[in-house]
């Protein structure tokens, strides 16, 4: 085995291979930074080029780009609070507050370093587990995978912030949103209202960009000014590295969680990074700083989201079952070279497996270094008045969200959830449980369905299930005990000023959630029994919790929001309307013209930029979009009136 590893390494003596690796790393870095575009976009863009290459070179290019996407997507998450890809949403939680406190450098350096170490640990783990990976994967049946998902869901409980009731409600809303679409086994379409778009559920990218991205953009715009005050980057870089060394245990555990999330079918990068974040909160002694800029909250998800990709190679290469879409494209590329991964892969193509592992490890290191080099320049973006950055970010997000299924539904969903996320933030509702609930609904429900239809209720007696059940009980016990001892659960950054909007909006919002849950429950009565389990599990507790929450809110004293808050709320809503207007313009005039109009009007009319600078800005945004469209074959939304 080690011979093959060395032979594969020798390839990197070839400058062509180095060039390919660098090209892959560059592409991955740029695409990772762009919000909404992740691994899928990356590999899809590079795919046309590989048809002229030999299989090793092609793998070096593809894997090189995949390896760095989850390193560079941190940059947007930390600096702008907009997840660079769905898997980076967990990093937003603590990374962005750190940036606002002027500690962007520290957060980024900790993130890059833990990403890199996570990736390397993933590569080592991948190598060591090659001989035993197949039996290991086969150890996990549907019931065990189900318990793992439930364990992941239980982590949502740790992310509820200072308001467990609201956090629980948020998780239920996430579950409910996750159950939109065809139930597993196609037995019934739930909450689709006859819309084809909703059949497969709402794409994760749209949800993550809406609930964190759009919400944050509106909020930053309404606050005005810049993201962080202009203070020197200082020793932040060194501090970040020190943080990683100090919390090496978290890096190790996070990486291993990530590898497992990648190895086991159906869990995926996003769930992996949230599980890692959840576990670090659950195990922490002092939790009050999480969500307000705790460096551990950056290290944990970052060390997981790179190692997920390494773990993902195991089902892809040994079972021919890709764990995520990027791996699926990799699989397609292998098919093209006449290689069908499967049980024989280790015997017949060991050299190729090692080419993949080495490319992954080397690209990971180079990618982290590249991001280090880029960040001082990028960190300066936080000093620019945000209103000037916003149009470019908004255009990228709209474009990125549209790529996932090329349907305007993606943008409706993103805007709708953006408003929801903004309201949640203003009213002190944690958004993390919402996303965890959403991400884990599909696998949990699927494995629940499979467990019951295969084993009836005997699955509950399997030893693996019992062990994980005990872990689950223990973790619940610890939380409750911790709570009794007066340890507060972490609160999201917003809840410092918790209910910004005052009493009436709170009551209105809770009533809205109550009504929504009730209506969803009413709709669920017509679903066949397995298809109804999830909607009921989400709505019945939601109705109870919302009712209690409503009573609590009715009994609190009325605090009138100050003039400034009122003004800020109005401004935020105005900015939101401008985004809706942009959507309408796209629908009417197509993406190109609408973007030009939106960017120019925004800058000239709102930000009061001099017209020639606004014009240059508009020109560059449209030009870059055009270039992407031409070079990469990405598709633009078309308008009704103009193409």
């Amino acid at each position, binding site marked *: 085995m080690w011979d093959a590893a060395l032979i594969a390494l020798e390839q990197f003596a070839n400058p062509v291979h180095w060039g390919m690796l660098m090209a892959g790393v560059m592409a991955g870095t740029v695409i990772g930074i762009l919000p909404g575009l992740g691994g*899928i976009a990356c590999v*899809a863009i590079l*795919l046309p080029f590989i*048809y002229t290459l030999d299989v090793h070179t092609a793998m070096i290019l593809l894997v090189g780009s995949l390896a760095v996407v989850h390193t560079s997507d941190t940059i947007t998450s930390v600096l702008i609070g907009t997840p660079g890809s769905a898997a980076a949403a967990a990093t937003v939680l603590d990374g962005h507050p750190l940036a606002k406190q002027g500690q962007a450098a520290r957060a980024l350096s900790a993130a890059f370093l833990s990403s890199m170490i996570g990736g390397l640990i993933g590569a080592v783990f991948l190598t060591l587990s090659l001989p035993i990976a197949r039996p290991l*994967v*086969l*150890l*996990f*049946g*549907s019931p065990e995978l189900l318990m793992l998902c439930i364990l992941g869901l239980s982590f949502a409980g740790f992310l509820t912030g200072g308001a467990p009731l609201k956090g629980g409600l948020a998780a239920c809303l996430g579950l409910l949103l996750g159950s939109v679409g065809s139930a*597993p*086994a*196609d*037995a*019934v*379409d739930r909450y689709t209202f*006859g819309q*084809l*778009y909703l*059949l*497969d559920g709402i794409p994760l990218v749209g949800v993550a960009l809406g609930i964190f991205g759009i919400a944050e953009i509106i909020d930053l715009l309404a606050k005005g000014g810049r993201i962080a005050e202009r203070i020197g980057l200082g020793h932040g870089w060194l501090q970040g590295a020190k943080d990683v060394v100090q919390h090496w245990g978290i890096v190790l555990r996070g990486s291993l969680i990530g590898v497992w999330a990648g190895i086991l*079918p*159906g869990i995926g990068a996003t769930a992996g990074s949230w599980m890692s974040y959840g576990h670090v909160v659950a195990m922490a002694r002092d939790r009050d700083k999480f969500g307000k800029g705790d460096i551990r909250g950056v290290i944990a998800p970052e060390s997981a989201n790179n190692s997920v990709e390494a773990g993902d190679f195991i*089902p892809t290469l040994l*079972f*021919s*079952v*890709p764990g995520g*879409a990027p791996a*699926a*494209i990799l*699989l*397609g590329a292998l*098919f*093209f*070279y*006449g*290689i*069908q*991964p*499967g*049980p*024989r892969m280790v015997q017949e193509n060991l050299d190729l497996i090692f080419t993949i592992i080495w490319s992954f490890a080397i690209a990971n290191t180079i990618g982290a270094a590249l991001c280090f080099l880029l960040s001082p320049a990028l960190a300066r973006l936080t000093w620019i008045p945000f209103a000037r950055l916003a149009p470019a970010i908004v255009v990228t997000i709209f474009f990125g969200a549209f790529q996932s*299924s*090329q*349907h305007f539904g993606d943008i409706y969903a993103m805007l709708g959830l953006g408003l929801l996320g903004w309201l949640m933030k203003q009213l002190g509702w944690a958004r993390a449980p919402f996303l965890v609930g959403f991400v884990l609904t599909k696998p949990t429900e*699927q494995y629940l*369905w*499979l467990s019951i*239809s*295969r084993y009836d209720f005997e699955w509950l007696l399997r030893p693996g299930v019992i062990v994980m059940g005990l872990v689950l009980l223990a973790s619940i016990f610890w939380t409750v005990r911790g709570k009794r001892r007066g340890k507060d659960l972490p609160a999201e950054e917003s809840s410092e000023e918790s209910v910004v909007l005052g009493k009436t909006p709170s009551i209105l919002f809770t009533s809205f959630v109550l009504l929504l849950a009730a209506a969803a429950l009413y709709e669920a009565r017509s679903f*066949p029994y397995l298809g109804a389990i999830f909607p009921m599990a989400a709505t019945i507790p939601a109705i109870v919790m919302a009712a209690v929450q409503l009573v609590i809110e009715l009994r609190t004293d009325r605090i009138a929001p100050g003039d400034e808050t009122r003004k800020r709320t109005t401004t935020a809503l105005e900015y939101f309307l401008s985004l809706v207007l942009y959507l309408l313009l796209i629908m009417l005039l197509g993406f190109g013209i609408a973007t030009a109009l939106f960017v120019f009007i925004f800058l000239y009319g709102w930000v009061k930029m001099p017209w020639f600078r606004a014009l240059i800005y508009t020109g560059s945004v449209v030009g870059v979009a055009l270039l992407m469209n031409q070079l990469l*074959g990405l*598709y633009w939304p078309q308008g009704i009136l103009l193409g």
Partner: protein
Amino acid sequence: MGWIHFKAKLPVYKWLAVCALSLGLATQALAAAPYYEGKTIEVIIPFPVAGGSDIWIRTIAPYLQKNIPGAPKFNFRNIGGGRGIPGMMEFALKAKPDGHMVLVSSATNYFPVLVGDKAAKYDFRQWKPLLVNPVGGVMYASPASGIKKVEDLAKAKNLIYGGISAIGLDLIPLISLELLELDARGVLGFSGRGHARIAFERGETNLDYQTTPAYNATVLPLIKEGKAIPLMTFGQLDDQGNIVRDPAVPDLPTVPEVYEKLKGKKPSGKFWDTYKIFMPSGFAVQKILWIKVEAPAEALRVFYAAADQLAKDKEFLTKTDKILGGYPLLRGDRLEKTIQQAFQIDPEIQRFVREWVGKKYRVKFD
């Protein structure tokens, strides 16, 4: 006489002019650019990136580009989700008769039409098949089920088949189970055939099928280790439209052959009629590249010519062997009749299928 002379000369002048003009036109026509020169062909893929059909077209497109005069650029648009219907509708509504837009389709796109899904408002008769690629499927069982050879199927107890959805490709294996009257049930809800195969390997299910390429790579090693027993194929169609042995797996009997073996008579009845309707669109003509029926003859011709070229192209055949699954890439015009027949379903059989999957697998049709 002057004017007569003049008049006599005029036709000559006219004739010369016509000559010159037609000569000019002819040279222009000879030098005329090929139909697709400098053009971009937009390929609508009604699936997300990296699905089977996506990889199929992305792999053969560079070879098509090489073999179509003018080397048109291929641009891919994946419109995933909604059981493939939005992507199909995009092509149905937006494709112009100029042949600059083509569509890839697979079994997922045919079954909604066959089971009468109201949302599937596309009509295959509006399109012409350019290229067709059959795919085969092989069923196999676990030795733990007590099955040693295909004849043991009849007395095997409690067979469990793992599948994705009762109105997808799994319909064909599920119909086969009914046709052969086995003591078997389907556990549905896996997110892909690979996941179903992993469940088979870990013993959750004991009956499974894979498409031929996946079977060759992932199941043959299991058979060698004695962990799987090959049973039967779904068969392919011959030129007359009869179900015959799969040329890629000629050693295994087809489902109707197994029926004869077990029951001692030719298959008949409702489930057999259903099998005959669904098998071709599910396997024998599974992947199709379409163009609008109004597209210029030149556009169709170059695609057919490219298919002929590729059939002789050694590099193409070896490089795409795994993607094409050991089956030829066929010219659409040769199979047009079979294809259009495959999408016609007797309303009575349609009702029968809907009732059966509705009752047995709790599928709710709107």
